[in-house]
């Protein structure tokens, strides 16, 4: 328990940050926002999942994936397929030439459910698929790339190309997967109407709790030896390799974890928004996810969440009043974050703390520098 407190929660300051986040999303938002805004925040929080995944993958691992949208999409589509099948009961689709299959299949002259849709009639399978399908996909990409030592820029570009391929594929195979319109008009989950306010509040809380959970999982990973190795690989990959580690396994693993995180976000997105479309799979959403992470602070799990919230709040607010200005602002933000605040919001927060009270700063430095060997000595003594 002490280990958990000290290392995973990051001691007092880490725990404070975590609790503040929990209070903000679990108490403050539901208290001060109406259901419409709350549902929006819920949607933004689903983007925080890939952002958090990028902290692990990119911030610590140094592996920039421009294809997190792919996994977000895979998770979202898995969930959407289940909901669509439920929405396409023979009664609901009686006017179709083939009742009982999703409407877009009927429009494309399909007369029976394609084989890969059939297992999605089971909710259990769907929940598993949300996690396993992206993980397998990530494993294949990861194994192919990392075993061959494709990294850095090349990996970024290749993941981007994969995002393009998947988008073109989804758009092109509209009979099987809904095309550019996506999978729409999802209404019930086991007969329970997911479009009601009540359902939205419940999904919001599920979303928050899962988000807090993945932050904890992320911290567990980062505070283990694996976490140190991740940083080590980012800075001196050869040294790690020549210390007897098979670097590719570690990269594949963290890539899979990141893909699962993103996919959970995607599945929650589908549940809260009520549809899934290829516009969340392509290049632009994928890069936006990197931005959420960069703005929040690429080394801070919690920062990434604030990053996702801030950018999306800004997007909504600005696009209502100054749509022109928004792109300028967004572009400028990108550049500013990269050039002046490489550690994003989290970094600004720390610097700000520096200036505000010297004492606090000192405490912090002591705290950051200390942990491990100190413990070691205490234990020995």
């Amino acid at each position, binding site marked *: 328990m002490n280990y958990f407190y000290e290392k995973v929660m990051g001691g007092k300051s880490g725990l404070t940050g975590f609790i503040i986040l929990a209070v903000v999303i679990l108490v403050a938002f539901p208290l001060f926002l109406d259901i419409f805004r709350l549902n929006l925040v819920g949607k933004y929080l689903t983007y925080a999942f890939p952002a958090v995944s990028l902290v692990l993958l990119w911030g610590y691992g140094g592996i920039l994936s421009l294809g997190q949208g792919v996994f977000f999409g895979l998770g979202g589509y898995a969930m959407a397929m289940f909901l669509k099948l439920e929405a396409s009961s023979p009664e609901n689709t009686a006017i179709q030439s083939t009742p009982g299959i999703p409407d877009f299949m009927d429009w494309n002259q399909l007369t029976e459910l394609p084989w890969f849709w059939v297992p999605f009639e089971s909710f259990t399978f769907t929940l598993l698929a949300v996690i396993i399908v992206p993980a397998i996909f990530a494993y294949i990409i990861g194994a192919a790339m990392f075993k061959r030592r494709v990294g850095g820029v090349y990996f970024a570009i290749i993941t981007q190309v994969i995002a393009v391929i998947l988008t073109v594929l989804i758009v092109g195979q509209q009979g099987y997967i809904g095309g550019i319109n996506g999978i729409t008009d999802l209404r019930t989950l086991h007969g329970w109407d997911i479009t009601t306010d009540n359902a939205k509040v419940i999904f919001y809380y599920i979303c928050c709790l899962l988000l807090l959970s993945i932050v904890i999982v992320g911290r567990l*990973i980062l505070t*283990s*030896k*694996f976490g140190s190795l991740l940083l080590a690989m980012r800075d001196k990959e050869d*040294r790690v390799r020549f210390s007897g*580690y*098979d670097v590719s396994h570690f990269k594949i693993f963290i890539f899979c974890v990141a893909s699962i995180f993103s996919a959970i976000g995607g599945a929650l997105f589908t549940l809260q928004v009520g549809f899934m479309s290829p516009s969340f799979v392509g290049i632009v959403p994928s890069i936006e996810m990197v931005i959420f992470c960069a703005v929040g602070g690429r080394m801070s799990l919690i920062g990434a969440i604030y990053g996702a919230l801030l950018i999306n709040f800004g997007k909504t607010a600005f696009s209502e009043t100054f749509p022109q200005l928004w792109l300028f602002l967004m572009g400028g933000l990108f550049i500013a974050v990269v050039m002046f605040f490489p550690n994003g919001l989290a970094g600004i927060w720390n610097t700000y703390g520096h200036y505000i009270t010297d004492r606090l700063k000192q405490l912090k430095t002591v705290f950051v520098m200390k942990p*491990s060997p100190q413990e*070691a000595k205490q234990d020995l003594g």
Partner: protein
Amino acid sequence: MSANTDFTLAIEELTVSFDGFKAVNDLNLYVDKNELHVVIGPNGAGKTTVLDLICGKTKATSGSIKFLNKELTTMPEHKIVRAGVGRKFQTPSIYENLSVFENLEVSYPYGRSVLGSLLFKRTEKVERKIIKIAQDIMLEDSLDMPAGLLSHGQKQWLEIGMLLIQDPQLLMLDEPVAGMSVKEREQTAELLNKISKGRSVLVIEHDMDFVERIADKVTVLHQGKILAAGDMKKVQNDPKVIEVYLGH
């Protein structure tokens, strides 16, 4: 010559070519048990390439490298390390964002699989070993310091420590005293003499005084081939070596 030998390391007929240029050409080199073997040679002689070949960073075009009678040329890098070969790079290669303690911990030879590293626990045994190594490399007072703040010489020692913690049978050091002060050189020489007990060490070095202080055996490389080999004195007096080093 029989395939199996008593040598720790046996390199035979090793060749590697880059786009036709043979950086190492038909090389034969043997390192005995408990031997501190130094490879010297002018720039471009292929010294670093030899180390690259041994540790698997570069793949050989032909020839064989046997370590304790295990063929290394076909093994992936991490397996070579796990077999007992440690290698220090020319420029100090440490994790600057981790503390000295963490640097050593990361190099600790347990928890090398993904799962193992996730479940790795910092036990008393681990800590004792780390502190022991830190004492050896004269960094026991800097355990908490981020490694990036160490001096150049200390970084070199840290990297050596990161290898020592794995107890390799063969330790390969690429210019371990480059950029060190005179005092640091002396300390390093002491360190090398201490750690070469019970293992073989292969060192690349330019500093002849330093070589003289540590070497059991010296091999001179020139243009990918062995020019001379033997103890320091013999090598120093070899006319071919003098010609290469002094030129005309």
